[in-house]
């Protein structure tokens, strides 16, 4: 049985950063990922990463923008840590070979991003995530004597000992079907978000909320789950993301009448207001009949106002996207866009060292909720979140591991999981198909838990999720093989997504106000008197069928009192 000081599940930016920090601290590390590390979804991050590195900037200003962007739901102690450690982290990345954009004089260049009071987004053209992920992976190679990589291993459950401590996990080797128990002193979840519970989404096929669900089943609280980010510029043609960098470079948003409608909502910041604000404005234009396109379901993103050479230099990936996927030359004509599901602000509740409610279990990155994003994440703050809290989790987990013996694990869970998979394979072909249920889930979540929400819709959404949870129990698959059986994984992922969806609708129904991305047409105002706290969701009791339980958790305030939010 593999045994390590620190076991990391997930090899995106958060997982790899955690692995490097733990290895740096001298720990033996295992990093396990269901896809090859450089295919992790972090690779898709386009626009950049925030840090107050400009001499005229100050991390406090970055922190305030983040607090305001979160609609005062973010925890200010965590935000202060993230923003003050940001410049050092950028230096570190630059140092290990990330080619951040340089200006004509050879110095670091920064671009404007939504909700930020000045230019503070460092970027690598519009392939920032890919550039950082590949360089971190190179670093991981450097530590190959201390870091064991388990690539294409799928985590099926977390292990706890009698004292309730997390002591590792069970995983399935995707290539061979072998099931194995992994023993560890500390376990870090870095499995990313749950975008696939929505359709369409900008998230890749692997973003199925596995870690959130695993932690939930292990007894941890999920927090801020009602806060789902809709990104303002996803291509109507196919849901792909057009980076906020496009607006950062000066692109306009227009309605059918050619008006820059953001004038009404954010006279100062215009297109660069916070994402929740821009998405709401677009959705309003569309709902009120001022949308464009055959279905009037879009607004136009006009990149033609940005100088062409700048577009080709700094936005080259989206030029290709427009050309390949929509047949549009974005340097010549505007491209139809609309809000699309993009990010889960909520996740497994952690403290500033990544520790969750379950001893020995950490979470970092999109799977976690520290909470630095609160009700709405600012663009380019997520990559920062993954790195800062990935690093801190890795360090903390390694330090704790240094002071303890390897805990004991039993094989009981391994047997349970093996049996569960065999049960899935043996199901009679009478129920629904996995893909059908997934499709219905995605469409329903996108209908009832989108930019605008209300009691009636969300109640319907919740009913659907509950029904799908039942149907998933008999959903069948066809592949009975062991080698590369993607169907089995699909069935397990569906279960994870349903857990997360349940938490999302439960929390969203509960919060009777509008805050950040959670915008209700039946409670249109923010209500600090009654709702200035986090909502958490946990399992009430053991077992897969345990109902969801809601609780409150306080928000940490340090220096900024809630104020009205204008852009």
């Amino acid at each position, binding site marked *: 049985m593999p045994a390590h000081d620190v076991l990391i599940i997930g090899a995106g930016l958060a997982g790899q950063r955690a692995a490097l920090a733990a290895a740096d601290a001298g720990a033996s590390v295992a990093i396990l990922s269901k896809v090859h590390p450089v295919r992790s979804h972090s690779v898709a991050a386009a626009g950049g990463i925030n840090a107050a590195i400009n001499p005229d900037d100050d991390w406090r200003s970055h922190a305030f923008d983040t607090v305001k962007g979160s609609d005062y739901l973010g925890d200010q102690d965590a935000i202060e840590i993230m923003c003050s450690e940001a410049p050092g982290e950028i230096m570190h990345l*630059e140092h290990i070979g990330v080619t951040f954009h340089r200006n004509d004089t050879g110095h670091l260049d920064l671009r404007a991003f939504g909700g930020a009071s000045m230019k503070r987004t460092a970027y690598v053209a519009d392939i920032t995530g890919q550039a950082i992920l590949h360089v971190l992976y190179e670093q991981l190679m450097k530590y190959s004597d201390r870091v*064991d990589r388990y690539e294409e291993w799928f985590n099926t459950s977390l292990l706890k000992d009698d004292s309730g401590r997390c002591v590792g996990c069970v995983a399935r080797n995707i290539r061979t079907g072998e099931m194995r128990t992994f023993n560890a002193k500390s376990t870090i979840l870095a499995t990313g978000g749950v975008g696939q519970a929505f359709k369409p989404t900008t998230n890749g096929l692997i973003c199925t909320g596995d870690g959130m669900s695993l932690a939930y089943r292990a007894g941890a609280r999920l927090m801020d789950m009602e806060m789902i980010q809709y990104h303002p510029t996803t291509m109507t043609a196919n849901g792909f993301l057009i980076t906020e960098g496009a607006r950062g470079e000066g692109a306009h948003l227009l309605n059918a009448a050619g008006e820059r409608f953001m004038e009404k909502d954010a006279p100062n910041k215009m297109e660069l207001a916070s994402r929740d604000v821009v998405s709401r404005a677009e959705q309003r234009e569309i709902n009120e009949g001022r949308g464009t396109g055959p279905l009037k379901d879009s607004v136009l993103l006009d990149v033609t106002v940005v100088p062409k050479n700048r577009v080709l230099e700094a936005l080259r*990936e989206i030029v290709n996207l427009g050309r390949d996927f929509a047949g549009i030359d974005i340097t010549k004509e505007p491209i139809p866009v609309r809000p699309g599901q993009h990010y889960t602000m909520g996740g497994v509740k952690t403290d500033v060292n990544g520790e969750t409610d379950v001893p020995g279990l950490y979470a970092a990155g999109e799977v976690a909720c520290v909470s630095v994003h609160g009700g709405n994440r600012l663009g380019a703050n997520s990559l920062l979140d993954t790195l800062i809290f990935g690093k801190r989790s890795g360090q903390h987990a390694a330090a704790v591991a240094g002071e303890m013996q390897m805990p004991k694990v039993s094989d009981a869970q391994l047997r349970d999981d093996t049996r569960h998979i065999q049960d899935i394979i043996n199901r009679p072909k009478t129920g629904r198909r996995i893909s059908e249920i997934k499709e219905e889930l995605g469409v329903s979540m996108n209908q009832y838990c989108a930019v605008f929400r209300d009691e009636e819709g969300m109640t319907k959404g919740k009913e659907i999720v509950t029904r799908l949870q039942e149907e998933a129990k008999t959903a069948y698959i066809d592949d009975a093989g062991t*080698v*590369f059986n993607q169907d089995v994984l699909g069935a397990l992922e569906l279960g994870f997504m349903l857990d997360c969806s349940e938490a999302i609708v439960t929390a969203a129904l509960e919060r009777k106000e509008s805050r950040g991305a959670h915008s209700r047409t039946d409670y249109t105002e923010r209500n600090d008197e009654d709702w200035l706290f986090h909502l958490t969701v946990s399992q009430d009791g053991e077992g897969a069928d345990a109902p969801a339980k809601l609780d409150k958790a306080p928000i940490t305030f340090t220096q900024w009192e809630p104020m009205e939010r204008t852009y």
Partner: protein
Amino acid sequence: MNFQLEIWRQDSRDQPGRFETKHVQDVDGEASFLEMLDTLNEDLVGKGSRSVAFDSDCREGICGMCSLVINGMPHGPNQVTTCQTYMRDFEDGSTIYVEPFRNNAFPVVRDLAVDRSAFDRIIESGGYVSVTTGPQPDPNSQPVTPEVHQTVMDAAICIGCGACVAACPNGAAMLFTGAKITHLNNLPQGQPERDERARNMVHQMDEEGFGGCTNFGECSRVCPQEIGIDVIGMLNREYRRASRTKKPSHPKKMVAQ
């Protein structure tokens, strides 16, 4: 649109493979190649047969996971990733051959999915910057000129998909390795291990069983990131320079499991 597909099926690495004929009907020209395969899989599952295994994740051309040889061309007829290939690019009624990326160094895992960990071992042999101790200089104290920055960026853009290897008649990994070397060896941070890096990476490339470059240029012509053949020139220069200095030293190898 209707197509006849000749798809490579192989149950596992050690079993022999074969082409299987499948027919797909009423395909939307705007569907991507992978969406077409998704529909086929739905169909197969509905009929109680095993779906076709293939790799994909982001489906927007950035993660480097998708990897099919379509009608003999890695990633298909256009110079984009497989996930960016559309059915409208094929003639209605035609037969389409779908195979995995083929190379001795990339064994088939199942059907169309291959194991590309040989690339990882090339990186492991030296494709990183190893300076980690001491205070970190402000990047602005080491300006990078726009020209160098551009050269580096044009190489760092590699997504590690392996199409270059699949396209090369010799199965060489020179474009991939050249891109890594061009990225790291041009940067100020990459200078200390410049020679060692070139020596070790080239050595590892040979160990993995990749072939040598004889200048066909196919790699660059199929590269979805349009990485230029000049990175191979850079690799050769760096290797020659390094060979003049010292003998290779091989760091301990570690296995990805």
